[in-house]
């Protein structure tokens, strides 16, 4: 029996070594230099209980409007979503001081356009913010053609409370077309040519640009506080 136990120990060691190598290879597939992606559980917790109305997150009567022009393929938008956005939601949106709009552009190319339609279709069911954060979770190589119907079904299938079939169908709906048109108009009006671009105001007609690029939560909080002071 001891000989068999020795044999088993050797095999167990060999198996552990093989699994360790496989785990290392599997883990190295993710870019360790990329910003931490918000996990789905984080997003669910961040958004829980906050009203969503199409592309708007937060109390519709909030005195300050924050608008983010984003591209779902843009890694800096993902970085902003992972690093700054959760803090702003917790401090300003959840407390009813700020409402935030997500304006999805297709500056990076065709895959962005396909992604936008699916996420905006989720917005017709008031799940746009959940869907966009889930897209960032699985964001791939820009314009590699990875945004297929199958990929989008994978993204949307994890969105709590979303009718997947309806969302996939709604990608070509008039509602999504209208919202895409509205984003394009606003993009031209404010000369948006990079993402993420964050703007602040009281409504879509009086927006002012905050610092370009990935704005830190602290800088954004400062801009929001200044705007809040103007509203009192």
């Amino acid at each position, binding site marked *: *029996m001891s000989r*068999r*136990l020795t*044999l*088993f120990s050797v*095999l*167990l060691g*060999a*198996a*552990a070594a*093989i*699994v360790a190598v*496989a*785990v290392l*290879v*599997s883990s190295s*597939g*993710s870019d360790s230099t990329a910003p931490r992606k918000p*996990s*789905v*559980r984080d997003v669910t917790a961040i958004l829980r209980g906050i009203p969503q109305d199409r592309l708007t997150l937060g109390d519709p009567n909030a005195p300050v409007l924050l608008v983010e022009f984003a591209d779902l393929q843009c890694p800096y938008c993902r970085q902003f979503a992972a690093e700054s956005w959760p803090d702003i939601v917790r401090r300003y949106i959840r407390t009813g001081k700020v409402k935030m709009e997500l304006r999805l552009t297709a500056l990076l190319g065709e895959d962005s356009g396909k992604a936008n339609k699916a996420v905006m279709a989720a917005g017709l069911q008031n799940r746009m913010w959940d869907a966009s954060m889930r897209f960032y979770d*699985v964001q791939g190589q820009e314009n590699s053609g990875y945004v*297929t119907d*199958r*990929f989008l*079904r*994978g*993204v949307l*299938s*994890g969105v709590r409370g979303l009718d997947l079939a309806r969302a996939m169908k709604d990608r070509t709906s008039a509602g999504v077309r209208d919202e895409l048109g509205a984003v394009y108009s606003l993009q031209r009006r404010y000369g948006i040519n990079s993402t993420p671009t964050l703007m602040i105001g009281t409504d879509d007609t009086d927006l002012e640009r905050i610092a370009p690029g990935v704005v830190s939560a602290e800088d954004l909080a400062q801009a929001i506080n200044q705007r809040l002071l103007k509203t009192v």
Partner: protein
Amino acid sequence: MSDRALRTAGLVLAVLGIGVAGYLVYVHYADIDPVCNIAHGCHKVQTSEYANLAGVPVALLGLLGYITLLGALLVPQGELARMVAALVALVGFGFSMYLTYREIFTIDAICQWCVASAILMTGLAIVCTVRLLREPVAAGAVPAADGPAD
């Protein structure tokens, strides 16, 4: 449990594993969605970065593992076959545990087919380990009776 019963159980588990892994391989290469009625996380898991290992679909690796296990279990006697079966099953079990961890804590979605495969691989690891630890009955020998002779 007799060695024959263990081997039969292992064969059943391996065949079921081939069915599960084979279906996922088919789904992968046909570029269609797997049937996902229980946990609704199959799409998310199958499109995650953990669905491939060094560019090879994990489902294909699983299928090859189950086929190897089936082949090793089909050999009634033989130390080498038992060792190969135990090694493959232990590797499969370990990697299944890793993938289950990723599903729960990283991808945050559960794929029912992956869970089924993990359960089958756990069963195979138990069966193959027990068979390995037992002294094989020499060819032509009469197995000892379970109880003492009167």
